[in-house]
């Protein structure tokens, strides 16, 4: 066992990324992968997230061969995923099954088959499901809002629905609103806010209970560039302590904020690894895309689709 592998073993309990990388790239040399990862962790651009690997002794999300059907449509077809604290990006084209996977993780809908454990609990049981929900933050893709509510009321409303201790609610609401930079709008009614601001209100309600598992479906949709930059910083901060799963179309968000990334297509997971690995998959392929990560994204999708067609 060489030095790299030994260092890898030392982190084995927490570095599930390696296991996933091996899953999607079974032909690759494990030692080489370990070297790459450790190098990236040592001071790469994702160090803000990656330095928390030492805390990764818990699998907050454990998904085994999960499927979900809606009538004849199979939205999720046998997805397996494990992740602990950190920011996890979930990429994929429209209809790939990202939202359905997130809804299952949010305990909104149960899987049709497969194994799903969240925060060490099986959401199939009512008691565990409540406990999961108590520690869960969720931002749906199409977030509605109550137009007559103010920003503070909306966030307070969900804090109360999450059964936060009443004494903590006012401070938690103020903190959440501050984190999305809406303190000056706390008393503004939602009907008067822009789409981007409403998105930030949605993020505030998701983080008001300091969730251990935060599921964000298209969180940056409607945000202006400045807000997206700030949001990525917030994501990294949240990822210090919680498992944050971000579903998005915007690969640059993933590159900037996520330590790990998965790519879904047609209900299946076609890639799991780091953003750098995704970038690497696009190198020299001539895949479409303006940025390296986009080219990696396109290349993986193209490969997956050609494999499917061949099969």
């Amino acid at each position, binding site marked *: 066992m060489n030095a790299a592998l030994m260092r890898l073993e030392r982190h084995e309990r927490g570095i599930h990324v390696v296991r996933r990388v091996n899953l999607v790239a079974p032909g690759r040399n494990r030692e080489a992968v370990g070297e790459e990862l450790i190098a990236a962790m040592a001071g790469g651009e994702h160090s803000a997230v990656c330095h928390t690997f030492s805390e990764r002794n818990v699998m907050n999300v454990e998904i085994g061969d999960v499927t979900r059907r809606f009538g004849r449509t199979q939205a999720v077809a046998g997805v397996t995923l494990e992740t602990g604290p950190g920011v996890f990006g979930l990429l994929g084209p429209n209809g790939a099954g990202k939202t359905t996977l997130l809804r299952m993780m949010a305990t909104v809908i149960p899987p049709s088959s497969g194994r799903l454990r969240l925060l060490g609990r099986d959401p199939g049981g009512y008691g565990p499901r409540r406990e999961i929900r108590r520690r869960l933050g969720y931002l749906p893709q199409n977030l509605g809002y*109550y137009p007559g509510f103010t920003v503070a009321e909306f966030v307070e409303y969900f804090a109360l629905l999450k059964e936060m*201790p009443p004494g903590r609610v006012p401070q938690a609401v103020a903190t959440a609103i501050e984190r999305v930079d809406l303190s000056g709008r706390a008393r503004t009614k939602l009907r008067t806010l822009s789409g981007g601001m409403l998105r930030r209100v949605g993020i505030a309600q998701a983080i008001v209970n300091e969730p251990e598992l935060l599921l964000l479906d298209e969180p940056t949709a409607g945000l202006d560039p400045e807000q997206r930059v700030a949001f990525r910083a917030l994501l990294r901060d949240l990822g210090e302590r919680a498992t944050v799963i971000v579903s998005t179309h915007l690969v640059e968000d993933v590159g900037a904020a996520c330590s790990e990334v998965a790519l879904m297509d047609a209900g299946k997971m076609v890639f799991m690894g780091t953003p750098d690995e995704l970038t690497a998959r696009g190198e020299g392929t001539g895949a479409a895309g303006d940025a390296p990560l986009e080219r990696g994204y396109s290349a993986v999708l193209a490969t997956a689709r050609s494999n499917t067609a061949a099969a």
Partner: protein
Amino acid sequence: MTAAAVTSVRRRTPRATSAVPLNAARLLRVELRRNTMPLMLPLIAALFWFDSYRPSTGTSPLYGLRTYWNMGQGHTILDFGPFVAGVAAWMGSRDGRRGLADLVTATTRPRWAAQLATWAATALWAVAAYLVFVGVMFAWYAHQGVAGTPPWWWVAVGVAAVTAFSAVGFAIGAYWPSRFAAPVAAFGGFLVMFLSFQTGFSHRSGWALILPTNSNGSFDGSAQTDAGIFYPWLPDLPIARILFLAGIAVAALGLTGLAARAGGPWLRRAAALVTLAGVALAGSAVRMVSTAQESAQGVVIPALHDAANDAPITYAPACGRAAGVPVCVNPAYRRYLPDVTAALTPVLAEVSGLPGAPTRASQVAASYPSGGDGPPQPISFGSHPPVLRLQLGLLNTPGPCGGCAGPVATTSYEAQMRLLFAHAFVGAGSGTGSPVQQAVQAALLRAAGIPFAAQPGLIAGTENFPESGPGAATGPVYAAAQRLAAGPAAARHDWLAAHLAALRADRLTLQDLP
């Protein structure tokens, strides 16, 4: 966004079981603050004013009559119910319409509990508004000097009805999260009220008495005017209706908890039990009301009846004198005492000193005979020495009159009282009387200042008077009456003293008149 601004210490969210009530109270406060119901209240207030209050002012200032339209026939419920159902449906469909169902479902609190908080806020606004509107109306009635006791039990029925409308509307919205849920629920509420009115008009007993718009047996009949004056408002029927409406509300709310996303299996089982309990409660109320019997004080339901409610209300009568005879009325009728004494003075003077003449006149509670024994007798004689019993509640009192062509004139009221007195005095009872009784009646009226020519019209226009009278003022009855009236008062008095017993026993003919 300020990622670094807050470096909160990682805390595991504690279970907050003990804080659940406080948490729920805060949730309710948020819902109350941002509920849609207050936006609808100005419209309901306007409707309440025009439909419930204004028409009631055209009736006598007695609670039984003043509230007949708005409480007895349920117009306050009509004004509230459809709108409350619509708003509740709007609130019930809110999460679905706004795309928040997923988000609410993914929270710790069961979705049913969150929905109940939304419903409770809507219902609280509606019930509070109902109580305020009715309270203001009653306060205004009190300011106007409306006499008697307000029908509080019927207010409770209204509260239960508003609650039921809100629960049913909410359930519709929860199961059909569409923008059309609200108008459909409102229209459905209106349709239910309309059908309830129609059923109430045609079904005077049995199960239909459960309908909150059915005034039969509660406000109509014996208890229409004198409930809350001579006897307390009987709570039997209101209690049955409250149980019925509460059952509907409970069942509707239970239904919202049956949805797959409402909560855990235990919660959904509890919701199923709540639904069944609500249906059972409503069904029991219908069964109970089917056993209802009408009494002089109102509707009696054996399973709910408390005999203590049959005890009359004690009162100190208001008294005056007419031709030396004491005339006493319930203090609620005090304002009509001068009219009553003025009406009775000439006829009492005419019969004064006769062996069957009344020694006093007292008001008694209005009472309709049962079993088709003819119309009730607003004025009758009873006991020894003879007492004139006045059921003033059966007469349209002077002033505004609900259901009449116009206000009742004092002269008309006095003339009707004289007619009813004369009719009772000759012993005609609830029938038209024999020709000789009709003739004496006509002569007495003539002596009291009512010309023969006016008497047929008076007979036709007097409420609760036998329809067929002596006919046109030119017939043989009036010819005999003219003979009796033409003579001196002393001669008439002497004839009556000698023949009154025979006259009342219907043993005389027209030829026996002088």
